[in-house]
């Protein structure tokens, strides 16, 4: 809401400078976002002196003036050849600036002559109504200065953010009332001569057919008006708030809207068939060409102003192209109405239209202001449109507004605020808000009709606190029973995982919950895979953010891509966030953990130069470490069924019978399609399942004590087929239940020459220890020979 201080001053005796007014409004809840001067915003309009004038053969109507702004010289073409003379100081609008009537100044070339700007008339400069002379200055003025500085024209305008509950503040008059409420500065209400109410009998008919959508409708007919340009003062005010003038009739309706907050509409009376104005719901499928040039198909919910034959206007929102005022209009029918805010809002939404008018109707106009606006418009029509005949005011008001009294118990004020602002103060403040009666310990207030936001006692308490000053209310700390419970298991788990992973060198990332569906189609998932059926946004920002993610993988790949395009190839990242799946209501939301390793990592100090590419053993190691620190035993089962992973380099993760996730290296072909360089290792875990598993798995810890007797070890190095996995060997050794065997350690794995292809060499170290005594060499030898023999026989291995 743009409020010129000079306009505001007409209605309230402002006793502060604009910055102070801004501060007062801001602290009362109406944030002033900016104080600007529309004249300054016009751009560079400066004083220049004419040095020389050239007349040319080929330019009949214009002369070329060489001018200086004190620093540089320019050439400017002007048609005002009678007025210019060397030495004259005039106003030059430089290229890039705007004139008062919205003309953009650019460098122009006419028949090879360049004009670097334009000389302005007082009207074009927005200084006075004079159009037919150049704005000229006395010889003493400084050159190159803003003409507004020289003329001492400054028009501070406040740009105020009005909250949606305060429709009453969407006008100059409304802001004036509010300032009066806050500061007690004297109010100067608009007054009109009584005879403005009088008029000739109205020759038409007005009917409200839908009184739930239209509460009040006032019409007045002005016959024999003159449609022309608005007077300078009206144009100037429209300019101050950034509105373009159209003609006197339309400008006056806009002017009254800005001043009093009441939207008005002017019809060309000749276009209203049968002189019959009907306020009704649209017929289904009825069409209407609006002023924005678009045909709209209406629904039965939309309210229209119609004549006998058809809809003319989308009520309270936008006028129709056909029934609007034009240069040829002779008689004007003026509408001032009060529409149901809900109806206006829903229709506006349906047709995606917001106008100055609908914006105000949605937020509630003053039921009593409807009449006042007609008087104000009449006043202006009489002065600036010279009507030959004015009709009576026809006020169709089926159910006049009866405000509900609000009952506020005295005690409630200090109970809600937590501080006693004093009964006298409460009473004095409430009195300003409307009609106040005190009944025992309760105040009864009938608020002013424009304060449609005041409905319940809490609204009054807010007014009391606000007008007392939020900052004047002392702060304290609440007192009450402690109720908090132990943190939820999922929070603890998530936090813990984040701690562990950052400790292991991972960076946490956060990516959007919406992804590009193309990512999913590139993962070559099976058609029945539910990750292929994401929830779709009906109004996405772009197609690349159009579905809710069903996996964290696309987001992580995006991060890889973004980094890779910006010099970072090595990544060790994780994300914890939700993935979403359709279900009957809302969505199934599952917390997931994604891990990604890409590129190289450092072993040792940077200067040792030991960089190694991440491989599956790294990823597996991190997962093992994570679960070890979570104290949750997880089983790793080769191979994963995820189609986007290289099968031989993938595994699934299980807790008991439940598959909780997968890990592996992404297929090269898929990375290529996504324009990514690999290898990229990825893992994704369902944290809900991890959390469940954690709650079910009992902690079974075998306590180890310092040994009493020394251990001894024996090594076996053997050659075995590559097909035999380490897990199989390990499981077999465990199954042998070898006495005194404390642990087995794989300390070397070798493939290649001289080991034959298809085979590998493993070195195992077996640690033996007696609990009660030191074992003898002989018995250890004996045991170990047996172990070796069993191993060789079982797997067809041979010693190396």
């Amino acid at each position: 809401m743009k409020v010129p201080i000079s306009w505001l001053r007409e209605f309230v005796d402002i006793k502060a400078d604009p910055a102070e007014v801004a501060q007062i409004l801001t602290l009362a809840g109406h944030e002033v976002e900016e104080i600007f001067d529309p004249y300054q915003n016009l751009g560079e309009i400066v004083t220049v002196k004419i040095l020389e004038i050239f007349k040319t053969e080929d330019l009949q109507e214009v002369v070329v003036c060489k001018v200086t702004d004190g620093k540089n010289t320019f050439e400017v073409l002007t048609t005002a050849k009678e007025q210019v003379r060397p030495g004259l100081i005039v106003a030059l609008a430089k290229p890039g600036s705007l004139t008062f009537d919205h003309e953009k100044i650019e460098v122009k070339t006419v028949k090879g002559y360049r004009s670097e700007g334009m000389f302005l008339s007082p009207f074009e400069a927005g200084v006075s109504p004079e159009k037919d002379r150049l704005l000229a200055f006395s010889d003493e003025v400084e050159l190159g200065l803003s003409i507004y500085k020289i003329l001492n024209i400054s028009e501070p305008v406040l740009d105020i953010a009005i909250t949606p509950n305060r429709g009453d503040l969407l006008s100059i008059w409304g802001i004036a009332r509010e300032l009066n409420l806050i500061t007690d500065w004297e109010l100067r209400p608009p007054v009109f001569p009584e005879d403005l109410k009088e008029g000739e009998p109205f020759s038409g008919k007005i009917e409200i057919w839908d009184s739930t959508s239209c509460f009040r409708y006032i019409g007045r007919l002005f016959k024999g008006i003159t449609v022309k340009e608005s007077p300078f003062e009206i144009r100037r005010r429209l300019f101050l708030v950034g509105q373009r003038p159209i003609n006197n009739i339309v400008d006056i309706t806009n002017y009254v809207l800005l001043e009093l907050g009441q939207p008005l509409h002017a019809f060309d009376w000749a276009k209203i068939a049968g002189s019959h104005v009907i306020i009704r719901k649209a017929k289904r499928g009825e069409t209407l060409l609006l002023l924005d040039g678009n045909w709209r198909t209406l629904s039965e919910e939309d309210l229209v102003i119609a004549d006998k034959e058809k809809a003319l206007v989308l009520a309270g929102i936008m006028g129709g192209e056909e029934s609007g005022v034009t240069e040829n209009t002779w008689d004007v029918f003026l509408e001032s109405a009060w529409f149901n805010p809900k109806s206006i809002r829903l229709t506006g939404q349906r047709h995606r239209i917001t106008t100055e008018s609908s914006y105000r109707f949605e937020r509630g106009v003053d039921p009593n202001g409807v009449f006042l606006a007609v008087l104000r418009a009449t006043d202006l029509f009489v002065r600036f449109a010279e009507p030959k005949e004015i009709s009576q005011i026809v006020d169709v008001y089926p159910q006049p507004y009866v405000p509900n009294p609000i009952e506020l118990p005295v005690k409630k004020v200090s109970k809600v605020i937590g501080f006693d602002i004093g009964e006298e103060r409460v009473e004095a403040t409430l009195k300003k808000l409307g009609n106040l009666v005190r009944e025992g310990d309760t105040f009864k207030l009938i608020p002013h009709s424009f304060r449609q936001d005041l409905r319940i006692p809490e609204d009054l308490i807010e007014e009391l606190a606000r007008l007392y000053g939020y900052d004047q209310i002392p702060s304290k700390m609440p007192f009450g029973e402690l109720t908090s419970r132990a943190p939820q298991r999922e929070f603890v788990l998530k936090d813990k995982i984040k701690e562990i992973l950052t400790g292991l060198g991972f960076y946490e990332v956060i990516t959007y919950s919406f992804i590009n569906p193309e990512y999913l189609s590139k993962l070559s998932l099976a058609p029945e895979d539910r990750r292929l059926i994401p929830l779709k946004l009906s109004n996405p920002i772009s197609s690349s953010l159009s579905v809710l993610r069903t996996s964290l993988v696309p987001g992580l790949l995006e991060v890889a891509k973004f980094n890779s395009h910006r010099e970072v190839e090595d990544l060790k990242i994780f994300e914890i966030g939700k993935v979403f799946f359709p279900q009957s209501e809302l969505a199934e939301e599952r917390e997931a953990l994604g891990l990604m390793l890409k590129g190289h990592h450092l072993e040792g100090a940077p200067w040792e130069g030991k960089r190694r590419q991440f491989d599956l053993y790294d990823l597996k190691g991190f997962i093992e470490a994570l679960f070890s620190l979570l104290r949750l035993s997880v089983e790793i089962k080769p191979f994963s069924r995820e189609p986007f992973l290289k099968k031989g380099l993938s595994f699934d993760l299980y807790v008991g019978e439940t598959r909780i996730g997968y890990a592996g290296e992404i297929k090269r072909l898929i990375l290529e399609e996504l324009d990514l360089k690999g290898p990229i290792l990825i893992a994704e875990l369902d944290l809900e399942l991890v959390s469940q598993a954690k709650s079910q798995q009992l902690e079974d810890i075998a306590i180890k004590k310092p040994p009493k007797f020394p251990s001894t070890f024996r090594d076996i190095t053997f050659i075995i087929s590559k097909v035999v996995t380490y897990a199989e060997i390990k499981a077999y050794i465990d199954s042998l239940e070898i006495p005194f065997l404390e642990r087995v350690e794989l300390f070397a794995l070798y493939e290649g020459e001289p080991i034959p292809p298809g085979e590998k060499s493993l070195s195992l170290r077996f640690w033996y220890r007696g609990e009660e005594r030191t074992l003898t060499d002989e018995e250890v030898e004996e045991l170990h020979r047996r172990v070796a023999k069993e191993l060789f026989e079982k797997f067809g291995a041979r010693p190396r």
Partner: protein
Amino acid sequence: MAVASIKEIKQKALEELKAISDLSQLSEYRVKYLGKKGVITLALKALKDLPPEERRILGAELNELKDFLEERLDSLKRELLLAEEDRLTDFDITLPGRRPEIGTLHPLTKTIREICDIFLRLGFEIVSGPEVESDYYNFTALNIPEWHPARDMQATFYLENGALLRTHTSPIQIRTMLQRTPPIRIIAPGKVYRCDADVRHSPMFHQIEGLMVDSDVSFADLKGILTYFAKETFGERTKVRFRPSYFPFTEPSLEMDISCVICDGEGCRVCSNTGWIEILGAGMVHPEVFRAVNYDTEKWQGFAFGLGVERITMLKYGIDDIRLFYDNHLYFLDSFKTL
């Protein structure tokens, strides 16, 4: 051998002892005087040719010297050995160490944790709610019916199934109140979604919702809690300012400003020269909201607040582009390691 020559030996030995400055000199010295063919060893051997009386006196004197030297040499050796270990090596202590890789939390996670910790200390409990919400929880139950102009304040993403992405964390208020009976003190961090994107807006961002309901929690208490929060987050010197505002689900409503962290209240671009920066919205729970969860408005009073995590993080670290949080460039994330 004469007394005089023993004196000479002693004098020379003591003199040379003083000159020893390293271990090799020390071992040369030991050989020279105390070795098998050392001066003192030989002198002692030579004693046997002397008359008994003289042998006794000179012998005692030589042995005393020998003992003295041995003791001195032992302690000198220890000193030299210790000193030698203090000699500088070719280790360049200034080279980076073999540091295990260390990661970092996302800055938004850091902020959420810090803020939650503050409220945990005040007896609040962390709760959560769904990100895909219904119109009812996100709007209607919060006193924002379908036709309400306040819906303009929150451009909403809708799903094709009719649900929506929550535009604020406030639906968690409703869900929590429906599940519990007062007193309630909760804090709820989470992702929220709004349909706009530029330098200052991200289609997804994070909020933290707070709610306290008790028999007489007041507006003054709300001010107290929020002031405590602001000072804990931005420092004890931070000034706060409360402005009336409007949210359909609170009445009275307020917005809290803090003194600009960039210019210290002097006025700068970040604070549009006002010296103040808005950081959160809050208010007393609206009776319509209590009605939606069947709470007795005569019995219970409460306050709620909601704050933007990105905004607070941007202010704390002087970040000027919200998109940096979701680009996840490693350099950006890395900057939060030392903080």
